[in-house]
């Protein structure tokens, strides 16, 4: 498979920014969309736009079929046992909030403990903080070492019978660390705790099998997986989801409604009140079909090559310090340049057509840990090339010269 060929599947990659060919290295924030996903979105609105799950008419059935078909595609993609374990949500953040609110309120009480890690995205911190505040429970944090790896001995000592849930990212969006979630899940289960995995940064970069991982919840967003924005997934084990109270009330999530008593619909509809993001779900299904065609063998090989090349390139530039040196690391590279503010570097790189991200990346505790105002982050996808890395190198050198 040729990357130059693959790049033609993504129309946006050929555009110019500030008159220069785009170098898109902000895939950790969101990924670009292949033409077939864009076509699927257009097709929906031009061919069969209709509300799902209720219409007797042809278009409604067609839309329902496509939407439910996408659910099955997603189920197979992450190896879930049942398609009703796949709950559509607006994204990772919403999925976490759903669990913290529905499962959390029913299962976490005063003096219970919720465990997160020192390298969580704000969206995997704040919902748990809100839950703990409401319930008088404690939020405990698994520390990390200077390389940006979780200290597993500390994790073990933090785990106790009070631990109700461990909520942790699979891959850190700032440090690129791949966390040992198999081990974390097994250790938490030993103590009777559930585990939620924030897969926002992993889902597009490695094959996921929720059954062999034995994750209780696995959440991710569609837009980081080459799908549309505004759609994401909550995977949960059937038995746990069945026990959970509904999250939001409304249409589609009910079995029967009277003013005295409402009974709730079965999974997955119990958690999908109101008209969902139909086109988002269908687009996400199409994005997964596309990834299946590319295949993770290719994705992993390509991204590992990019990661190594970018790491070597950055290490060769004087003053560059890579933040996050975990042994197990994805193609997300944060760095600082001694004496230069990340925002200044980012502004110059932008002028050169290079899209990177600067700032705290919604992980302020990590910035506090390293005592830095922010980082410059390059995050890669399989459509990036060694030429992109060469342009990043040249851009950094230009920025350094200009800013000195």
């Amino acid at each position, binding site marked *: 498979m040729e990357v130059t060929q693959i790049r033609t599947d993504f129309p946006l990659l050929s555009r110019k920014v*500030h008159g220069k060919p785009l170098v898109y290295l902000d895939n950790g924030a969101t990924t670009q969309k292949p033409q077939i996903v864009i076509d699927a979105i257009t097709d929906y609105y031009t061919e069969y736009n209709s509300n799902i799950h209720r219409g007797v008419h042809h278009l409604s059935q067609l839309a329902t079929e496509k939407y439910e078909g996408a659910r099955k595609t997603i189920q197979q993609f992450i190896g879930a046992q049942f398609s009703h374990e796949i709950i559509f949500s607006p994204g990772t953040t919403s999925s976490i909030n759903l669990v913290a609110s529905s499962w959390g309120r029913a299962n976490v009480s005063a003096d219970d403990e919720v465990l997160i890690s020192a390298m969580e995205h704000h969206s995997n911190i704040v919902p748990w903080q809100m839950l703990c505040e409401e319930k008088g429970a404690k939020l405990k944090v698994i520390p990390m070492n200077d390389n940006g790896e979780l200290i597993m001995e500390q994790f073990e000592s933090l785990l106790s019978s009070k631990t109700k849930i461990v909520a942790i990212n699979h891959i850190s969006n700032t440090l690129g660390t791949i966390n040992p979630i198999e081990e974390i899940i097994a250790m938490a289960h030993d103590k009777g705790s559930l585990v939620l995995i924030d897969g926002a940064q992993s889902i597009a970069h490695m094959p996921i099998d929720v059954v062999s991982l034995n994750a209780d919840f696995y959440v991710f967003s569609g837009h980081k997986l080459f799908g549309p924005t505004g759609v994401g997934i909550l995977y949960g084990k059937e038995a746990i989801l069945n026990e959970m109270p509904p999250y939001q009330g409304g249409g589609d999530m009910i079995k029967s409604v009277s003013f005295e008593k409402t009974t709730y619909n079965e999974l997955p509809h119990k958690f999908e009140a109101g008209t969902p993001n139909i086109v988002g779900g269908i687009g996400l299904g199409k994005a997964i079909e596309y990834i299946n065609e590319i295949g993770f063998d290719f994705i992993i090989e390509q991204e590992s090559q990019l990661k190594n090349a970018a790491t070597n390139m950055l290490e060769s530039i004087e003053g560059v310090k890579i933040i996050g040196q975990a042994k197990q690391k994805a193609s997300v590279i944060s760095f600082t340049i001694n004496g230069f*503010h*990340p*925002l*200044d570097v*980012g*502004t*110059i790189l932008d*002028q050169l057509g290079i899209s990177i991200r*600067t*700032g705290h990346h919604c992980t302020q505790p990590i910035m506090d840990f390293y005592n830095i*105002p*922010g980082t410059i982050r390059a995050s890669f996808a399989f459509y990036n090339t060694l030429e992109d890395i060469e342009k990043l190198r040249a851009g950094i050198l230009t920025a350094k010269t*200009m*800013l000195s």
Partner: protein
Amino acid sequence: MTIEDIEREIVDEFDLFESWLEKYEYLIELGKDLPLIESSEQTDENLIAGCQSRVWLHAKLAEGLLVFTANSDAIITKGIISLLIRVLSNQNAADVLGAELKFINEIGLTEHLSPTRSNGLVSMVKQMKNYAYTFSNTK
């Protein structure tokens, strides 16, 4: 000079530049000449919220005119605020409040430095106007 006179002067200066590179090099130079805030005033209270870079801004009245000083940890941000200070410092509060600051558009800064929280251009202007508002009411 009036605020509009200074704005026109800046627009004329930027008209000489042919590329973004020259524009940014000039901004960086300006950043180095920013009227720096007293270190005793570089406090959390004077920090402007909503910027990716940290910006400290101080204002005082001297002979009836507003005088701004500032600092930032990012050099391009310092350049931007240096331009704002050149336009708005040593003016009376009412004029600062009424300033339209069209020069930002005319020198192509909005196009390159969109008014998002990443550079905090909007927050800076808002804070300068807040100072003007406060001083015009305490007189």
